[in-house]
């Protein structure tokens, strides 16, 4: 697997997975930039042996729970204040399911 083999079609697929409707110009540009960036970062594959554990978090903390006591939350009006559209105290969204 060569990281620099990422193609324009790969970029288009990644963008669709990320739900970004990139223009043709953007696909061209990212198709050129990403291989250069990946070429630089792929060095990580040669640095650490199998015995090195991965680190997801710098300061380990475990089982973090706050006390289970009710506290005031947002009112419906506050929660909906930034909504692009709302109706009857609900977020109004475009059609999610097909029509048939």
């Amino acid at each position, binding site marked *: 697997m060569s990281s620099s083999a990422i193609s324009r079609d790969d970029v288009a697929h990644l963008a669709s997975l990320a739900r970004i409707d990139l223009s043709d110009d953007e696909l061209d540009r990212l198709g050129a930039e990403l291989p250069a960036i990946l070429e630089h*970062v792929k060095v990580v594959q040669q640095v650490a042996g199998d015995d090195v554990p991965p680190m997801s978090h*710098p300061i380990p903390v475990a089982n973090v729970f706050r006390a289970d006591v009710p506290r005031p939350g947002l009112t419906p009006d506050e929660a909906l204040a*930034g909504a692009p559209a709302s109706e009857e105290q609900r977020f109004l969204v475009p059609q999610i399911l097909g029509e048939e």
Partner: protein
Amino acid sequence: MSIDVTTATAAALAEALADGTTTSTEVTQSYLDRIAGADDQLNAFLHVDAEGALATARAVDARREAGEQLATLAGVPIAVKDLIVTTGQPTTAGSKMLEGWVPPYDATVVTRLREAGLPILGKTNLDEFAMGSSNEHSAYGSARNPWDTTRIPGGSSGGSAAAVAAYEAPLALGTDTGGSIRQPAAMTGIVGVKPTYGGVSRHGVIAMASSLDQVGPMARTVLDAALVHELVAGHDPLDSTSIERPVPAVVEAARRGDVAGLRIGVVRELGGEGFQPGVRAAFDRSVELLVKAGAEVVEVSCPHFSHGIAAYYLVMPSEVSSNLARFDAMRYGLRVMPHDGASAEQVMAASRDAGFGDEVKRRIVLGTYALSSGYYDAYYGSAQKVRTLIARDFEAAFEQVDVLVSPTAPTTAWKLGAKSDDPLSMYLEDVATIPANLAGVPGLSLPVGLADDSGLPVGVQFLAPAMADDRLYNAAAALERLVDMPRLEEIK
């Protein structure tokens, strides 16, 4: 006794307020006047809240008049990076995605500012969602460097840095994911601190890379930064990564500033090739001053730091691609209808294309790739292992020395546009700051003078073990007294 309000340190302002030499209303108004006069050139603020700041100032003045015991910084104004959510003022994250959005709650750090009575002057400019080292990725135009307005102020907290450097605010909050507080502080000749990961609450800070992001102070002196640090730090039950331990004694350390007998390590891998000669010379002079002040300086090697950028530019975009999935055009933020009857998914994709800028898209796509099935182990997994090795380098180094030092950035501030077409060259600017974020340790950038070659500010970075943030303030305060850092008198 009179005081020049806009050039005074925050510590001096706090004293003048406490002894009645001036009022918060006067101080706040002076800063608002300064912003009105200078920000056309600097574009440091995305939003100025004159009304809110003055209301806080008047309330603090009234409480002080009534004899109430107030917080140390009560009445001293502050600017807040526009990545940190605030009620009553818009929070844009420097993105068209959130243009005009007014959050329904305050970040914990903002709550702490309000409780202590600091007037919030406004929200400062940044690279979109904190992604960038120059401020040029702001959707609202770049902030400018007050030392030379044709140059970048650094990023991503460039607006906060420019505002503090240009006396538009005595204090500011920034955020630092790979150097976004320390690098702009270095570029603009101010002090900037990334606290220990988990030392300051991230609740209400729009997430870029959750395992790396940290809020911290930006100020004109080490003591001023410590006063803000002490105010905003400490455990927060609303942030599951918040450390439940006492805040390091940063203010006491900043007042002490004694390096006699302190063991200081110069990081071999963070200097030399790729670092501008004027930056290296200023750094070397600082090391000599520390030696003269009684520090024991040795060279230490952190061999894996050279792979920090590679690991960072996999870990960070992976977290970015996940965190920014929340901007889906459904509950808040920009919604674009590509055509009548468009589905939610089509609206989402069109909105994210219209709302995000180039750098954000680049990182989301890169992160999506690094996390893809079949590539995950090779990229994200390998980067996480390098992260372990970098943390181990720090552990080994801190067995030999108390603090580490390096230049904060390889260069002084570059011309606007000089690196815009080459994302990779911009990424390489983060070489010295990234290791601290990957390992979670604290870092501080101190202005140490102007580079001989460019005539622009140079920063020296101090690094310390996790939860030993006080060591940064102690060492930096000692060097601060010895360096020849000129004042910025006029915006050129």
